[in-house]
């Protein structure tokens, strides 16, 4: 009987912890322009991605500037609208359990046309980079949650 009680208590506590995690997911959203310049430059905010930006396909450019930055705490099921310099995006937390962040991301271009609708399942702290062409330049949206 004691064992059963302990098991039920553990299940309730586990559920409570999972619930707290779902309700409190901090995300950083960076809008980045990728261009080519005489001198390579990577914005300090992009330090966690610096090495990756020097590899293909990003190595087609050498100047990466953050155009807008958006920090937010996502709540499960509530879309967070992100105003971009070019277009708009929406991020919604679907779930956050066992170190996995499940999101729904919608990205529209400046004319309102949907470019991406994705439901990624990422590990905590993993970056998701959405890349699009903008003439000869690149337009990147980088997102990480934990």
């Amino acid at each position, binding site marked *: 009987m004691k064992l059963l009680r302990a098991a039920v208590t553990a299940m309730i506590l586990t559920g409570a912890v999972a619930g707290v995690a779902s309700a409190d997911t901090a995300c950083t959203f960076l809008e980045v322009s990728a261009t*080519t310049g005489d001198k390579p430059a990577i914005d300090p905010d992009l330090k*966690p*991605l*610096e*090495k*990756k930006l020097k*590899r*293909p*396909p990003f190595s*087609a*450019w050498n100047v990466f500037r953050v155009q807008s930055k958006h920090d937010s705490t996502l709540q499960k099921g509530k879309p967070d609208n992100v105003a971009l310099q070019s277009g708009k995006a929406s991020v919604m937390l679907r779930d956050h359990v066992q170190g996995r962040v*499940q999101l729904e991301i919608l990205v529209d271009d400046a004319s309102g*046309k*949907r*470019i*991406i*609708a*994705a*439901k*990624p*399942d*990422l*590990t905590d*702290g*993993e*970056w*998701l*980079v*959405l*890349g*699009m*062409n903008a*003439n*000869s*330049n*690149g337009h990147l949206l980088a997102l990480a949650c934990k």
Partner: protein
Amino acid sequence: MTKPTDSDDNHDLGELVRGHLELSADDVPAPRFDQMWREIDQSIAEPVAAPALGVWGTVTQWLDRKLGYIITGVASAGAVAAIALVMHGGGGGTVDNTDVSAPAFGGAPAQLESLETPGGTATVMEMHDEDGDATVIWVTSDDIEGQDNP
């Protein structure tokens, strides 16, 4: 009397095959050999330098060369997501997957339960280094795909 070993058997078999090949080679006329060598030389010759590509051409060329999995158009999301994957340059066959993981270069990949890129082609890749993991979804607009210089 010594019992023959596996090594002896292998040696004898090798001699037999070699002898047969040498006899077969003697039967091939010299001009035919010349032609074969020309074909081999051509197949291993240095490729002709490709014309210079623009920035976007460089990106798309890298994506084409490096990544086999291209997610096209509108990928549908069902109860369990199903995404159409097209082997780029591999005959255009379509495969339905119940769960799409990015082609990983190492480590546990992120998962995409659904992905829609209306009007574009998406390439999904994983990048790993000491700074952590990143999943990249690159969307090439259908309007510019194939252009070498934007």
